[in-house]
């Protein structure tokens, strides 16, 4: 049977043609992944598919069968926040918070392919994520801080 893994759990989608964001939010009831625009232009719906950030609003379930998906709910392990989540908390990198799960997932993806991004690389990588509250300065700071902490943890 067609299946995929979400936050470490195997799932069998009922409808393979279903929009992936719809599947995550309303079949799995993991509502931390947000709807923002439905066009892949704001990043609120970003999840990790096999570790890479993907706009779930523009994808159908069958396109990710057999993959391992991580949503914002699956990021913290064993009660501890992921270092990126921790950095967002410490930098007060949030206002309304609606866009923040998407920013965090995009950041996790960025830091896995580029553990020490420059300021310009952070801005470029997060350019397609939108925060209307305008928290960008704190988000950039949080990403830099997360990179630093994850770098230290690897040493």
């Amino acid at each position, binding site marked *: 049977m067609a299946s995929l893994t979400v936050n470490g759990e195997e799932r069998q989608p009922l*409808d393979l043609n*279903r*929009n992936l964001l*719809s*599947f995550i*939010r*309303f*079949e799995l*009831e*993991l*509502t*931390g*992944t*947000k*709807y*923002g*625009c*439905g*066009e892949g*232009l*704001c990043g*609120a719906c970003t999840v990790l598919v096999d570790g890479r950030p993907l706009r779930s609003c523009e994808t159908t379930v069958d396109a990710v069968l057999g993959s391992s998906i991580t*949503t*914002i*709910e699956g*990021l*913290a392990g064993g009660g501890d*926040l992921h270092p990126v*989540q921790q950095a*967002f*908390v*410490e930098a*007060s990198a*949030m*206002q*309304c*918070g*609606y*866009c*923040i*799960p998407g920013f*965090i997932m995009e950041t996790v993806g960025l830091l896995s392919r580029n553990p020490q991004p420059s300021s310009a690389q*952070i*801005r*470029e990588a*997060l*350019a*397609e*994520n*939108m*925060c*209307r*509250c*305008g*928290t*960008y*300065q*704190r*988000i*950039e700071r949080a990403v830099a801080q997360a990179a630093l902490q994850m770098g230290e943890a690897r040493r």
Partner: protein
Amino acid sequence: MTDVAAIPTEGLRISGRVALGFPPRRNTYTSVAYSNAQPDAETATWLVVRPDSMVTAYAGKVEYGQSIRTGFAMEVADELRLPLDTVEVVLGDTDLTPWDNGTFGSQSTARTGLQLRKAAATAREALVELATSKLDLPASDLVARDGRVSSRRDPSRGVSYGDLVGGELSDREIDDEVVLTAPEDFTVMGQPAQRLDAIARVTGAAVYSQDVIVPGMLHAKIRRSPAYGGKVGSVDVAAVEQLPGVVRVVVDEETVAILAESDEEAEVAGRSLRPRWQEAEDQTSHEVMPQLLKETAHDPAVTQENGSLAEGFALAERTLEATYYVPYVSTVPMEPKAAVARWEDDGRLTLWAGGQRPFGLRAEMAQAFAIDESRVRVIATEVGGGFGTKSYYPVALEAAKLAKEAGRPVRVAYTRADEMTWGNFRPAALIEIKSGFMSDGRIVAWEFNAYHAGPSANIGRRGSDGPYDVPHVKVSVASSDSPLRSGSYRSLGAAVNHFARESHMDEIAADLGMDPVALRLQNLSHPRFRGVLEKAAERFGWTPGVAPSQRGVGCALAFDVGSYAAACFELDVAGAEVNIGRVVLAADCGQIVNPVGVENQVEGAIMMGIGTGLYEAAEFRAGRLLTSSFARYRVPRMVNLPQIEVVLTGDQSLPSTGAGEVGIVPVTAAIANAVFDLTGQRIRELPVQPRLGKSGA
């Protein structure tokens, strides 16, 4: 989500007057637009000290990014001498919290926070009083600290708040004259604090209106006319009713709603529906707005008058006239509006909504269904951005009507295009200024005529009166027709009026060959205005110069709902793109509860202002919004982020005046002034970027 919380029935309960939202005044924006909501009780519970020594505070506000939950908790914690994590705050639930007019106008800290401080201080005094008999010690020997009341001389003699309040309920009224903690004794307030709801926001646990799921809920897909004012002509629902998951199709005058078991099934069915629409003819376009604003102007109101314009202009050695135009802009909260409505077995209505006015929605529901307000419970979710547009929340009534029709809970959620199209817009405005001044820089005459679109006169009036010491002034604001739905937007008309006024100040400076900061200071005696301008200039490293100096620097001064601000911008132009490199904004908002919260709000307001300054304009033609997608409506992104420094200059012994809005107010003029300084092009029409290098702006 569907847990029904209740006010604790044990502990020390502090109650007091309600109606501490934005003051309902006659003939104002709030009373005209929101006259439906009135307090249903004179007093309400504001705070409970529980037997477990925890404290629950209640406020009818909503959390939409301003971190008011944390701000309130800090105020309560300080007055009750408690650590921040022992205070929980219940917001915006019409069954639990004190009545409130709405979360707008930067009033939460100034008014509601003050009432919570009084409630907490009253509780503290009551706890000390209870301890006198429990410990058999005089009040003068007792001190409340860290959740205990104990003897000053022998700290081992003490009793916890929980033990003092015991297992029964006792009531106290808020003592309006209670002595509040002095700023120098704050231990929580004034220090940066981590938000109470930070973890929920980074783990996805925070529940917004789009996230509400209740058992048995149907998902509505609503097809709306592609054009404003369109009506459903004909629609064939039979084929759609047979599609998987579809429960029913409800045809209304302007909408066709498909109710289905899942959002996906509703969406798929909705797409296959082919309604024919009857569209209104001869609808206007954004291009005619400047003329339309002038031609349809009515009910001009004088918002500032001093001396005589004739005398002033006779006195003046030089005069300048200029006209400024600001287009409609979209509000664009990240979360499109959504609501879930459920009719209970006993006929009560429960509504989950992310609106800025839970009690206003309750009144709206009661009126719509002709039931008593006590039969409606509105529960505010986390709100994914509002900025004014969620004071108007039409999805709530749609959900309630459909739920009634279906006999099941119903979720209605706007798409992005719905949010852009059917939300409200900041009104377009045309502003004419004529100024008269002396060669030494003294401004002696100031005539300001503004024409703001839309019927809410107070939107346009806000911020129209100026801060400068001009002897002969007349400021008049008229309302004009509005082809789009106009409504609240951060700072209402203040940011719009300031664009014109503060651009014009720079035009005077350029005409006289004066430094723009020096010109402002010469005409400014109010110490708080001078304070923010001098501080911003100092931190920015402003050096006097005459524009255009080709440095790309610009400044502007601002006032909004009691708060003062001044901004200095530095920018560059590369091709068709304006790059803002650096912003310093000094703000005086009086007493600061949570500096991080204030700085975050101001930084965000600057970014929002940059959007309206450089990119944003809502465009429409033949009843269609042309800018209903992020592909066609540009907002600031992280690559557009300047280095922002916010300096808080307020006197901590002065009352808090709110910080959510003032930051946006000086931004667009500072940008236009910096562009002039860089290029010599004076752009009097927003947004600036598309007009760079073009004549006739």
